[in-house]
């Protein structure tokens, strides 16, 4: 069983949703990102998604796009992403990589899977990859025991949801806003329907992403989903902090707040 599956099982046993926190590797710098992720886990995040910085992040809103741009400008490379995953995973945290597909295609799908597995990573979330275009990834991920997380959206018709959820392992990522990532003030109501539709096709946990920024919203989403994914709000806190230490404690505080919300949900 993957660390991600274990994390969902543990949360379900406690009768609550799992909290999943995102941050890009190398932002605001490599060491701070690692410390922040571990602090988030200590404060209640069950799973960490490490973003692999990419030059053309079309599925991300301006907050994450700017952070990723800074990580790249700082010289973040794929090796740094793997180091980051390794450091977080060895602290006992279930850790996935969220990545656009081209960097993986260039690294080599098999080689990346091997190296990710060897540092203790749990799998990949692939926002711009469809199951049809996944090539050898399903077979390779199975071989290395990695999870494959594809995204469904409110605009996905049922036949797409069936196809996508059947290609997933670990969990299904339900993108609740029709838009790109970016914290919104009210949780989009189409998320509820999307989770229901996904559940008609899969027994996997369904986690809702993009949109949550505070504990009230976390509680609301936790009321209908198996997992609550928070990215932009963490990245904004990291970016607003004036020191590395400040960034780590800001991430810790937000995680604690969200974790509380989830326990109310």
């Amino acid at each position, binding site marked *: 069983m993957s660390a991600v599956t274990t994390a969902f099982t543990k949360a379900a046993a406690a009768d609550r949703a799992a909290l999943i926190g995102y941050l890009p590797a190398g932002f605001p710098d490599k060491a701070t990102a690692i410390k922040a992720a571990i602090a988030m886990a200590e404060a209640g995040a069950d799973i960490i998604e490490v973003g692999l910085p*990419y*030059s*053309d*992040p*079309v*599925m*991300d*809103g*301006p907050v994450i*796009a*700017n952070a990723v*741009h800074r990580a*790249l400008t700082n010289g973040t*490379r*794929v090796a740094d992403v793997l180091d980051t995953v390794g450091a977080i995973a060895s602290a006992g945290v279930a850790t996935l990589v969220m990545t656009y*597909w*081209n*960097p*993986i*295609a*260039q*690294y080599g799908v098999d080689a990346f899977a091997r190296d990710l597995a060897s540092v203790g990573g749990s799998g990949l979330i692939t926002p*711009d990859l469809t199951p049809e275009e996944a090539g050898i990834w399903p077979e390779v991920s199975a071989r290395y025991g990695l999870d494959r997380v594809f995204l469904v*959206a409110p*605009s*996905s*018709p049922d036949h*797409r949801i069936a196809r996508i959820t059947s290609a997933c392992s670990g969990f299904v990522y339900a993108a609740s*806003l*029709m*838009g*790109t990532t970016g914290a919104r003030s009210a949780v989009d109501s189409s998320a509820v329907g999307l989770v229901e539709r996904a559940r008609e096709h899969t027994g996997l946990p369904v986690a809702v992403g993009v949109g949550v920024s505070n504990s009230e919203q976390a509680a609301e989403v936790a009321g209908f989903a198996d997992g609550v994914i928070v990215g932009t709000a963490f990245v904004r806190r990291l970016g607003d902090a004036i020191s590395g230490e400040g960034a780590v404690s800001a991430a810790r505080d937000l995680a604690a707040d969200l974790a509380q919300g989830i326990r109310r949900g």
Partner: protein
Amino acid sequence: MAALEQLEKEYDAARRDPEFTAELDDLLKNYAGRPTLLTEAKRFGAHRAGGARIMLKREDLAHTGSHKINNVLGQVLLTKRMGKTRVIAETGAGQHGVATATACALLGLECVVYMGEEDTRRQALNVSRMRMLGAEVIPVTTGTRTLKDAMNDAFRDWVATVGNTHYCIGSVGGPHPFPMMVRDFQRIIGVEARQQILDQAGRLPDAVVACVGGGSNAIGVFHAFIPDTDVRLVGCEAGGDGGGRPYRTAATLGLGSPGVLHGMRTYVLQDAEGQTLGTHSISAGLDYPGVGPEHSWLKDAGRATYRSVSDSEAMEGFSALCTTEGIIPALESSHAVAGAMSLGRELGPDALILVNLSGRGDKDVATASAWFGV
């Protein structure tokens, strides 16, 4: 993405619908001014292209000043058919933005154009034109502030607004069905030119030359000639100023490698880790690190060849056409003009060369004045 499936379905139905094709044909003829002329460039051929016979396909004479209108009219009619009320576009040189703003004004649709900040500066005339036409122009300040970044922001807009919005991509790039659909809308260039050159020169050309940014004018003029295997298809990419140095070129097919960009599998200018490289070209419309997948296929199949034309060669082509023919070409098209100059010298005076003059150069007079110091 569901919007792509919807688009594919609607496009497939539309192209079989006689009412849709009749409406498009009518707009192309009575609004855009098709067929465009085929003009023999006698002095240019004799003095600047090794004596070869050069025929120019005059897309610069189409309404709005470039081939971009062909594709836009098709996509905007499709937008109406889908019941959508808002159109977004990316633009580099501003020609696609102007064409989109124009068609939206004509059909009463809301129009938003994303344009890299660098390009809003170097193509300022087109920014004014778009605004006069009622479009909102949003300068893009991320990344290299050029075409690729404008496309990123247009995609970001679209995923958030697909319900009422059509993303009118300006070249043969992006996810399926865009490369195929835009190719179909631009095919008319080659269909017309093939018949015109048979009528005027009595034979097929030895070569067809076009500039390649995303590749829409090139695929448009090439397509009808693909089965004519004796006709060489020559694409001219922007070599920039760099003699092959990364970041100083936009010669994607020449210097790139297979990858994924903007939802297409194609050649990409990228580093070893798959990060897209910054590009440079004096021409905003060719300053793009990807290329339509059909060109990658034509290159790999050996059916078309692609050469790199530097900034200074393009400017030489620009000046040559101005002074020998009284035609001011767009900087993009000037790459094809320069390509025809070297190809004419290679093939000699018996050669017959068709050059796609994709657009006119009014928008570029500031850049050219600075270059030539006039």
